[in-house]
């Protein structure tokens, strides 16, 4: 896409976050959508493009009373919303629609109207992974890490530190689910989930949602909100089976998506003021920092250990507290995008001073997919 040609003008999360038993999944989509429309002074009648994952865009459009000329139901897991932003920017530039609503809602904790989750026994996963006893992402997404530890000397303490630093950010955020400070010792003493991962190195399970409204940069100046321009985008997929990743110490989808986004934005890593890396588990920021090129291979854990990503550090990372401490409904990517928008608008609870460029990087499935969105509050 042409950098800066499309902007996010509306952004909001669900009114409540965490435990919301009185709303179903579609209800969470709608709550977030109406909040985002209110944020930018629009109504559903102004929307002509709809994108979402979890629900089909048909459901969301009909529920909200929208008659779209463009829809996108790309569903590649938690980074689907990064892909929606990228696809929406292309659609707006191509004239397929003018004003896109991207929604996320998930009753991950209360499971109201959430549908069923399962692997078909004749799928490749059902034949070649499920029979060996994985019980969801905590015992699958984590499998590469012992290999990473052996290759690069990552220690259990360094892995635990990722959770400790993110809790420091969460402590500044009233909407974060977990705010009490924790130590490396606390993390290592928490219940073992799937060795080498302890409870505090795994994401939360919550209810919630979020929505974004995008339009052309030329129109964006007419909105009441400060525009957040899309300046670089990337996406890729690698494999639906974590066992079939090419290399357990690096994600090909991360590398391809990140490189594309940086090239499109025409920026260097030194230009980045704020970073979000989808953290379903504590190793994700480590893989993300390396695969996006912020540090060399094997260097990310020490980079975090030394305090570079904590409040006051030179590369503020996951400033809402992340999936580990803020919220994680199942597909967290929308919440990472929301925090990038808040930081660029200057409205984040843990606001970083003078943010001009934010990189927001998502994962889908278990290293299955990736999407990267680079945003700026200055039009290039």
């Amino acid at each position, binding site marked *: 896409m042409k950098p800066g040609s499309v902007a996010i003008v509306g952004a909001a999360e669900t009114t409540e976050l965490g435990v919301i038993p009185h709303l179903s999944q579609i209800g969470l989509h709608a709550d977030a959508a109406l909040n985002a429309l209110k944020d930018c002074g629009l109504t559903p009648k102004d929307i002509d493009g709809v994108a979402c994952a979890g629900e089909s865009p048909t459901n969301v459009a009909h529920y909200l009373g929208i008659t779209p000329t463009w829809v996108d139901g790309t569903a590649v897991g938690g980074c689907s919303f990064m892909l929606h932003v990228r696809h929406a920017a292309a659609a707006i530039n191509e004239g397929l629609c003018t004003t896109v609503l991207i929604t996320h809602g998930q009753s991950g904790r209360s499971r109201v109207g959430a549908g069923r989750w399962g692997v078909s*026994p004749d799928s490749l996963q059902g034949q*070649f992974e499920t029979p060996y006893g994985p019980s969801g992402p905590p*015992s699958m997404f984590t*499998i*590469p890490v*012992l290999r990473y530890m052996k290759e690069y000397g990552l220690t259990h303490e360094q892995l635990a530190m990722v959770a400790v630093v993110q809790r420091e950010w969460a402590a500044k955020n009233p909407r974060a689910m977990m705010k009490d400070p924790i130590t490396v010792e606390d993390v290592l003493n928490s219940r073992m*989930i*799937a060795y080498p991962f302890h409870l505090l190195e795994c994401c939360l399970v919550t209810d919630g949602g979020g929505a974004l409204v995008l339009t052309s940069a030329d129109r964006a100046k007419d909105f009441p909100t400060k525009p957040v321009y899309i300046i670089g985008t990337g996406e890729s997929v690698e494999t639906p089976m974590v066992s079939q990743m090419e290399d357990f110490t690096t994600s090909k989808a991360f590398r391809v998506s990140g490189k594309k986004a940086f090239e499109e934005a025409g920026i260097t890593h030194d230009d980045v003021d704020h970073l979000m890396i989808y953290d379903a588990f504590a190793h994700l920021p480590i893989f993300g920092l390396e695969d996006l090129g912020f540090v060399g291979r094997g260097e990310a854990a020490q980079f975090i250990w030394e305090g570079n990503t904590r409040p006051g550090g030179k590369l503020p990372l996951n400033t809402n507290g992340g999936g580990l401490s803020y919220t994680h409904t199942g597909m967290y990517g929308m919440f990472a995008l929301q925090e990038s928008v808040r930081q660029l608008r200057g409205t984040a609870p843990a606001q970083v001073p003078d943010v001009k460029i934010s990189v927001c990087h998502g994962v889908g499935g278990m290293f299955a997919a990736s999407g990267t969105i680079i945003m700026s509050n200055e039009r290039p």
Partner: protein
Amino acid sequence: MAETRKPLPKATPETQEFWDGTRAGELRIQRCLDPQCRHVYFPPRPFCPKCASPDVEWFRASGRATLYSYVINHRPAPGFEEDAPYAIAVVQLEEGPRMMTNLVDVEQTPEALQLDMPLEVTFEKVNDEISLPKFRPAGGAR
């Protein structure tokens, strides 16, 4: 009986040969016959994932492998309650491909499970249709 609650694979036409093999006590995988490629691959499909050639064949793998990575799962999947905690491993076959499996005849502890340790395939008969390939330390039980 707990065993029957475990999720079992269901073969498709493209994977039937693999499951016929495990039932016969053989680990059958595929290789590309294009002389420029010769790629050995898994999971099964009727063409080479590297060069797209349909000229591929099944062959019996040696069954020798090394331990590439694993977790020790403390939250058992339905049907696995009596096994917990148990390792879910990815092994690297001598021929190149990797596959997910369980490790048997060895303690399910970080001390006993060292990355790159040599392993050999063994087959666990679940019922008349399905035998699952599992791996144990090379040279028999420890």
